[in-house]
C-alpha cells in the first residue's frame, strides 16, 4: 500500500513488507514540453556509517559511480530528459548485501546544472520520487517533487536505516541548497 509521504513520515519496512530484501528507488518526471534547456533529474544515494557519513568515496552512488564496493546499492543509469514511461532512474538497495557497518542509505534527487539552467522542481511536470519493494513492486512511499518541492533544486527524499534487526524508511522531504557537490560534501564525500 503506497503511502504518500509528507516530511517526517516513517515506515517500518520490515513490518510493511517483512519478506523484502531489495528496495528500489524510482525517480520519474515528464520531458519538457516548453522550449528551453531539458530537465535532467538525478537520483543519488549515499551509503552511510553510524556517524552519518560515507565510509569511502565509493559509497557516493550516482551516474558516474554506479555501485558501492559490496554491490548493495546499485544505480540503474542516467536519464537526461525524462523520456520514457515509468521510472526514469532507479537505485536498487539490496538489504541482504548490506555490510554491518552500514547504518543507513540516504536517497536524494538533484537537478543537474540547476543553477546554470535556473531550474527547480516546480518547473518540471510530474516529477516524483518513490520507493518500492522489489519483490512485489509495491510502492511504499512517494514524494511529489513538482508540487511539494516546487522551489527546490535538490532534495533529500528519505533514508533507509537500520533499527535493530529491522530496516525502516524515514521520509525526510528536505530541500538542499547548493547542488550535487555541496550535497555530497555534507555526507563526507571528498569532492
Amino acid at each position: 500500500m503506497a503511502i504518500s509521504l509528507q516530511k517526517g513520515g516513517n515506515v517500518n519496512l520490515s513490518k510493511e513488507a517483512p519478506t523484502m530484501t531489495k528496495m528500489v528507488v524510482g525517480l520519474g518526471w515528464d520531458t519538457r514540453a516548453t522550449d528551453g534547456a531539458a530537465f535532467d533529474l538525478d537520483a543519488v544515494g549515499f551509503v552511510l556509517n553510524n556517524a552519518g557519513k560515507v565510509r569511502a568515496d565509493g559509497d557516493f552512488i550516482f551516474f558516474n559511480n554506479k555501485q558501492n564496493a559490496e554491490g548493495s546499492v546499485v544505480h540503474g543509469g542516467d536519464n537526461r530528459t525524462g523520456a520514457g514511461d515509468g521510472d526514469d532512474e532507479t537505485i536498487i538497495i539490496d538489504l541482504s548485501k548490506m555490510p554491518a557497518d552500514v547504518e543507513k542509505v540516504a536517497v536524494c534527487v538533484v537537478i543537474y546544472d540547476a543553477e546554470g539552467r535556473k531550474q527547480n522542481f516546480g518547473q518540471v511536470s510530474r516529477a516524483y520520487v518513490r520507493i518500492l519493494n522489489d519483490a512485489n513492486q509495491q510502492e511504499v512511499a512517494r514524494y511529489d517533487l513538482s508540487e511539494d518541492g516546487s522551489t527546490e533544486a535538490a532534495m533529500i527524499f528519505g533514508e533507509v536505516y537500520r533499527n535493530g534487526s529491522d530496516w525502516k524508511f524515514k521520509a525526510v522531504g528536505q530541500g538542499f541548497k547548493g547542488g550535487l557537490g555541496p550535497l555530497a560534501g555534507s555526507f563526507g564525500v571528498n569532492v
Partner: protein
Amino acid sequence: MDMIRGQKVKVADITANSTHLTVELQINAAFTIDFSCFGVDAAGKLSDERYMTFFNQPQSPCGGVKLLNNQSNQASFQLALANIPPAIEKLVFTAAIDGIGTMAQIQPSTLRIRDGQGCVFSFSGADFQAERALMVAEIYRKDGVWRLAAVAQGFNGGLDALVAHFGGEVAAPNSASNPPSSSSSASPAPAKPSLTKRIQLEKRIEQEAPQLISLIKKAQVSLEKSGLGEHRAKVCLCLDISASMSSLYSKGKIQAFVERIVALACRFDDDGEVDVFLFGQKCHRAPVITLRNYQQYIGHLIEHFPLEGGTEYSAVMKMIRQHYLGGNSDRQSPLTPAAESPVYVMFLTDGATANRKAAENQVLYASYEPIFWQFMGIGPTGAFEFLEKLDDLRGRYLDNADFFSVSSPQELNDEQLFSRLMNEYPKWLEQAKQKQLLVRG
C-alpha cells in the same frame, strides 16, 4: 508574497480564502502582447473552445473567467473559481507576442493578485531566450483544492505552438482551394474550426476591415438565432453578369450586397473569404473576395468581365460543383464519403435562364451533394416564376435550395437580409447530416 518561477501555493492562502480574485498581467515591452486564459481539462487540453478567454471571447460560458481591461501590454482576468465546471481542471494565463520580437526583450513584468494578502510574480527578459508565447501562470485543482503555479515557460513557435500545446488546430499555410483529384468520392476541403486561424481572422478584421465589424456582429446575431454561431462552411457568390444587370452594377447596389456577404463569410469561413463565379451567356471563375479587396471588388470585376448578352444557369452550376467536389456528373446517388463541411452558394440573378431544363437537372443532381443553393432574385415580383418553381423542384434527394426576391438589395435591412439568407439553410443542414451528405457534429 513574492513568487518565483516554479513556485506553487494554495490560492486560499493568498486571497484569505476567497474564490473571487483578479489576476493582473503586465508585460512591459515595445511590442503588443495578446493575453488569453485557456481553461483546460484533466489532460491539459482545450476540449471546449469556449473556454479560451481572449479579446474576442471575453467571458467563459460559466462566467468564472472574465477578461477586463485588455490593452496592448496589460490585461486583467476576473475569476469566480466556484463557477468553474468540474471538467475544467486548470486555467492557464498566457501571453503571446503580436509581431516581431521575443520574450528575451521584455522589461521587468509582473503577474499580480491584489485580493487578500495577494502575491506578485516578477519576471523579465533575462528569464527567456527565443520564446514568443508564454504560459505565465496557472490556477489548477489538486485534490479538490485550487492552487497557483508561477510558470513563465513558453514556446519559440509563438501563439501557434501555444495553441498546439493545448490540443488546438494549428493554422495551416493558406492554400488556395484546388480542385481535388478527379474521383467521384472527393469531398469539399474540410473546414474544422481552427483556433489560431479564427484568432488571426479576428485580428485581421480589426486591422484591415474595421468598418465591417458592426456588420459582422449583425451577421453573428442572426446566425446564433438559427443555431449557427459556431458553424463553418465555404461561402460562394454566384453573380449574374447579363446585360440587364448593368444599372445595378453601376449604381453600386451589388457592391453593397457584396459587403454583407463578406460579413457572413467572416463568420462561416476562417479565412473570411468568398469564392466568386459569374454567369451570363458563359460562366467564369472570378477572383476571391477578401478583406483586403472587397471594397473595390465590383468596380474591378466589371472592368475585367464585360456584361454578356444572355443568362445561363446550368453551366455555372456545373462549374461550381466541379470546383468544390472535383466532379459534376449527372449524379443520382449521394456523394460519399460524407463531407466535413458544406458549401453555401449565394446565387444572385435578375432574370430566368434560357435553358430551364438544364438548370433543373443541375439542381437535381446537386441535391445529392453537400451544397446549398440560396437563390436571390433582384427585380420586380412576378419576374421569377421559374426560380419559384426551382425552389419546389421534385425528385431531389433533399430540398437543397431556397429562393426569395427583392426589388433591390437594399430593400431589406441588414438584420432582415441575414435572417432571410438563413431561412432554409439550417433545415437543410440537419437533413444533410441525417442523410449523410455531411458528417454529424
